[in-house]
């Protein structure tokens, strides 16, 4: 059974009471969305095991990843991979770009010979639309941002992970290349059964690629559910604000023209109540107590008292709402 749970309770403001679960048998693409500072990257770091949660645990195939040792750890390392935002920073400037591909091949013993390793690399590069002879042997600064990011994707392709954390993979790439990269990611999921956690602040790309979405604000889940439903019919004031901020290519519609007027953000730390309270135009007395998740439909939930006519759902069960 392929399970993955994440549980992080209170204390850190980076991420608070977030619980997710992905099923190995049903590879999917889950979007985690939110503005900068919402805890997206922390989530990625936690899932990759780079930092340990101050409370709660991260389970991979039923095992706490912080306890993994030896071969188990290597397996976890290999099966959970990432594509990062900055296509330059991931390259060690000392080496040619080959280093990015050869090291995992070596470490995970993916090839029996140099020849085979080379073939694998070329195959992966070709698969992301690069000509190996243009790429191999170059230093990162000699390549364009798009090329570099596609090498990253090629790396993920090469390793055939079970789970891929894609942390804003296209935000620093030319618009013209985004589609290509996203398409490659999608084909990874489809053709190789890789689950993808797609972390972004860009709801449009999320809409294109993902099945389901979790909207975070300051480390707390605001709304979650089927990507279509959430984006088309957002119920949480924060989600509504986000969607309103998308510059739709519709000239008749003026940007930012909606009923919901977000208040200026006040930089006061909300420790107990709704994280969105200081900016929420509908802020109420009871919002000073953190709202639970209210289940709005089979594939939608929101953490807002405006929806308190709906039944609540424990945060551990949120994953059940997410379509695959």
């Amino acid at each position, binding site marked *: 059974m392929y399970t993955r749970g994440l549980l992080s309770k209170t204390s850190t403001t980076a991420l608070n009471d977030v619980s997710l679960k992905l099923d190995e048998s049903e590879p999917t693409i889950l979007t985690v969305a939110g503005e900068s500072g919402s805890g997206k990257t922390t989530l990625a770091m936690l899932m*990759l095991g*780079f930092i340990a949660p101050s409370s709660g645990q991260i389970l991979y195939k039923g095992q706490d990843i912080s306890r993994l040792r030896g071969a188990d750890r*290597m397996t976890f*390392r*290999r099966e*959970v*991979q*990432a594509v*990062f935002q*900055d296509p330059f*920073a*991931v*390259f*060690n*400037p*000392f*080496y040619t770009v080959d280093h*990015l591909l050869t*090291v*995992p091949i070596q*470490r*995970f013993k993916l090839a029996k010979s140099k020849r085979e390793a080379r073939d694998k690399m070329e195959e992966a590069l*070709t*698969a*992301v*639309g*690069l*000509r190996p002879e*243009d790429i191999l*042997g170059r230093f990162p*600064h*000699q390549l364009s941002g*798009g*090329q570099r990011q596609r090498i990253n994707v090629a*790396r993920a392709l090469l390793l055939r992970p079970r789970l891929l954390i894609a942390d804003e993979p296209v935000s620093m790439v030319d618009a013209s290349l985004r*589609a*290509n990269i996203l*398409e*490659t990611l999608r*084909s990874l999921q489809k053709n190789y059964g890789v689950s993808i956690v797609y972390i972004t602040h860009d709801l449009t790309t999320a809409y294109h690629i993902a099945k389901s979405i979790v909207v975070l604000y300051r480390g707390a889940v605001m709304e979650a559910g089927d990507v279509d439903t959430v984006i088309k019919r957002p119920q949480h004031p924060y989600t509504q604000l986000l969607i309103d901020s998308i510059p739709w290519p519709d000239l008749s519609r003026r940007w930012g023209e909606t009923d919901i007027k977000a208040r200026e953000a006040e930089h006061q730390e909300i420790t107990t109540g709704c994280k969105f309270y200081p900016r929420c135009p509908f802020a109420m007395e009871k919002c000073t107590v953190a709202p639970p998740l209210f289940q709005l439909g089979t594939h939608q939930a929101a953490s807002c008292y405006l929806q308190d006519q709906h039944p609540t759902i424990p945060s551990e069960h949120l994953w059940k709402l997410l379509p695959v």
Partner: protein
Amino acid sequence: MATIAFPQPEVRQPSRATLVLRYLRRNKSLSVGLLILLFLVAFTVIGLLTINPKEAYPLAVRAKQPPSVTYPFGTDFFGRNLYAAMVIGMWQTALIGVLAGGLGTLIGVVLGFTSAYFGGILDATVKGICQILTPIPIFLIQVVIAGSIDRRSVTIYTMALIVVLLAWMGPTLVIRSQVLSMKERQFVSVAKLSGVGDMGIIFGEILPNLLPFIAASFVTQVFVSVYASFYLAVVGLGPLREPLLGNIIWGAQLQGAFFNGWWWWPITPAVAMVLILGSLALVNMGLDELANPRVRRSE
């Protein structure tokens, strides 16, 4: 869509040597510094092959001779051939510099890496010790040490040791801060994802990137060591029999060389010292430029 080829302009890859030469042409201080250093090395090497090492010590040749064809740098009061003395002195200075500099850098690299990479109490301790020792005037302590040990055991090796004893904090702090920033870089994360262990990350990923820093730090250490050993020798705390540059100046001062008109005696080692320290300073400056990514213009 997935297989669209992105055409690449043809780029001919210049050879490494050409790149280095091209870089050196731009980095003037590095090239001038290296040139002087090279000259000094050539002088020493050629010298070592041609001189009679005995002539670097007293009673070897006619004393107090001004520079001439036979004695290009003249001879001193004690009957040293100053040319031979310069050659041996340079060699010994280089030895002290490289030994003390290398050792100091090594300590700095090891401590800096372990402390920054693993953090925790170890890091706090290393950082604390370095910070506490930093305000203490190193030279005074070196003088106290040099003055305290038995004269017979003062050799150029003990000199190097005395110098290094309190000169490892600089490189440690420099390397530590570099590792601290380096270990947050994403390629370290990627390496972890690629299954690379701690040692692999330290040596395979971080260390190569710090090479310019380590080199700069090494050059700084060599500079500091040469400087310190020179000072110790000038005040008469070195191995007095050896023709160390500082010792020669010390001897010249005691025998009233300037007053007696034996100007070549102190001037020769003084100029040599200026060349050594100056070239090291230049190289250091050049390496700074190399290590500092902002200055390193993309190629």
